[in-house]
């Protein structure tokens, strides 16, 4: 970190908001690398790993989870104010996550359908990503992010370098891996053509469809892919659901799903 005091170790925080805890495992599953990383940086706040100091000033704050409660709105503002670099990690933090499916519906009504006494539960009607609420410096996408991603980001930021975001679509990685294309060879509705890589093209390697857990790639042609899915026999509502799953609140997936659902008269599930 360019501006860090000589000899002072960079201070790192890992925060959790509305999430499944899975992206923190990108750190907790590092094993020996985690021990080495802890020798290079000070984890001043990382509740699941032990240290708790949520309001500490840090060089890098990684944030897992979406903004889904009034308290989280306040917390993310404090985290932003206390951090030199703010790095949302994972689908929840970058786009609201799977729980952002409520944004497409009446979130308050949904709450009442799950909780007999919704008034006891403090929750926003929406789930949004961190960048929808405060400025962020860099985002790591994926549901979940993996150790390779977080280590690369820490390394780059510590050296004052802007991390290079992934640009390729899953298709590119799939081709390089020599996987048989599940869309072409099996007619499986694969989201690989519109999804950014970073996962390692895991799903097609297993002979199944990509379901878009890393989020949209740049300039994805959702319109053409939706028509291709329709050609495979999917109903408009099924096409809509392909786009509205892990990253339903992220453009252009959000609009693509909406078009298939609303313009094309699909039933609202």
């Amino acid at each position: 970190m360019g501006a860090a005091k000589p000899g002072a170790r960079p201070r790192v925080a890992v925060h959790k908001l509305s999430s499944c805890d899975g992206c923190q495992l990108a750190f907790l599953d590092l094993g020996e690398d985690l021990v080495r990383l802890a020798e290079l940086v000070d984890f001043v706040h990382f509740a699941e790993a032990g240290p708790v100091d949520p309001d500490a000033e840090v060089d890098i704050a990684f944030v897992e989870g979406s903004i889904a409660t009034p308290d989280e709105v306040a917390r993310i503002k404090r985290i932003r104010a206390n951090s030199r670099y703010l790095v949302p990690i994972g689908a929840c933090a970058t786009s609201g996550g799977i729980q952002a499916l409520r944004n497409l519906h009446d979130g308050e009504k949904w709450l009442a359908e799950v909780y007999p006494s919704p008034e006891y539960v403090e929750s926003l009607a929406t789930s949004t990503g961190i960048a929808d609420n405060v400025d962020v410096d860099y985002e790591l996408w994926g549901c979940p992010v993996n150790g390779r991603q977080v280590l690369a980001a820490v390394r780059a930021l510590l050296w004052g370098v802007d991390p290079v975001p992934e640009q390729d679509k899953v298709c590119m990685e799939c081709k390089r891996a020599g996987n048989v294309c599940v869309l072409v060879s099996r007619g499986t509705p694969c989201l690989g053509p519109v999804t950014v890589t970073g996962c390692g093209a895991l799903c097609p390697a297993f002979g199944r469809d990509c379901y878009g857990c890393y989020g949209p790639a740049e300039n994805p042609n959702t319109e053409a892919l939706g028509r291709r899915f329709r050609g495979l026999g999917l109903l408009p509502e099924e096409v809509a659901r392909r786009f509205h799953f892990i990253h339903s609140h992220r453009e252009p997936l959000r609009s693509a799903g909406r078009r298939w659902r609303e313009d094309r008269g699909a039933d609202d599930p």
Partner: protein
Amino acid sequence: MSDAGRRIDIRVPVLARVEGEGALEVHAEAGRITDLRLRIYEPPRLFERFLVGRDHSEVADAVARICGICPVAYQMSAVQALESIFGVEPDEWVRAMRRVFYCGEWIQSHALHIHLLAAPDFFGYESALAMTADHPGEVRRGMRLQALGNEVMALFGARAVHPVGARVGGFHHAPAAAAVRDLRARLEAALPEAEALVRWAAGFPLPDNGQDFPYLALRNGADYPMNRGRLSASTGLDAPVSELADHVAEEQVPHSTAFHARLHGEPYLVGPLARLNLNADLLPTETRALLGETGPALPSTNPFHSLPARALEIHAALVEAVRLLADYRAPERPHAEVTPRAGVGYGATEAPRGLLWHRYETDGSGRVTAARIMPPTSQNQARMEEDLRATLEARGLDAPDAELRFLGERVIRNYDPCISCATHFLDLTVRRR
């Protein structure tokens, strides 16, 4: 504070306004607890609602997202429930490999809990990372076991967090024989490490904390329960999983987003100690011998014995995975064909933290029309409150707040609730009167 009759109002927001996800509020009068509330405040994510309208083929990918530490458990309970609706009987290969898949999750999750969450409590460290300097061998052994568990999950799921291999009917993909041989050899090589872990864990200075409570786990009479069995409880309950809601009532309380569940009106325990109490006779021979040597004596109603139970389950899971992967052959097709139909189905499996129960209704095309999920944490929550009450009173409420808070954190962490991180934020309020 020594004068219990004195009216005292103490508010100790140790970590002011953080999280609010896990907080403990204790009201005491004359040295007795009059009210105790464990507030679990995980923001609601409404899975049970947004699963409605989804196709059966999307459910396994969706429910994995409920928990990053035990996604396999959610996937296995869900596919089991859906298969029961569609009348699908997975073949012997699928059943065996699902058990291996589950073994991976137990090894990973239990190793993470013992080393990263629980052990620092016993050695006086803030974190496992801080502990590594003085106890490098033990911590690194734990991390190696955790990594092995992850590898088992990745063998079937391509990755350990939100694996992508599970589907209704079986798996999307069968691992290659060479990959299985390689991993099996390393699992076998880790058995002495797991044994050493069991012996190490048996030496932890566990609080003597005998309590009286019922416990519940699956039991099938043939193998140590993971993904099949009937509901079995210390109360004598023996019922099919479809009847859980007839015996357990869930209620929402104002102070928590996790429901409180009671078995015939009583707080009850699920998880490793409940499983061990009810199924020790079904442990692999080697693990049973290790249990005999290291304890605890069973049945145990000291909740802190969950820790040695976890270590023993890591050992058992390794033995099981090694056994089940012997003579491995990839099948022609790793899943049964599925023909959707309308109906109601139930699935219950043993997540690392305890019984995880799902209920789904589907329409004729296999779309979900209703979903209900009862995770282990909500089943344990009432029991955690009872445990906290007993433990704090036994210690004496005139103890310093810092000590009571640490004791409370340890009690909660011991259950390894799916809010593990929140319990580090334990914001203790004691109101003494």
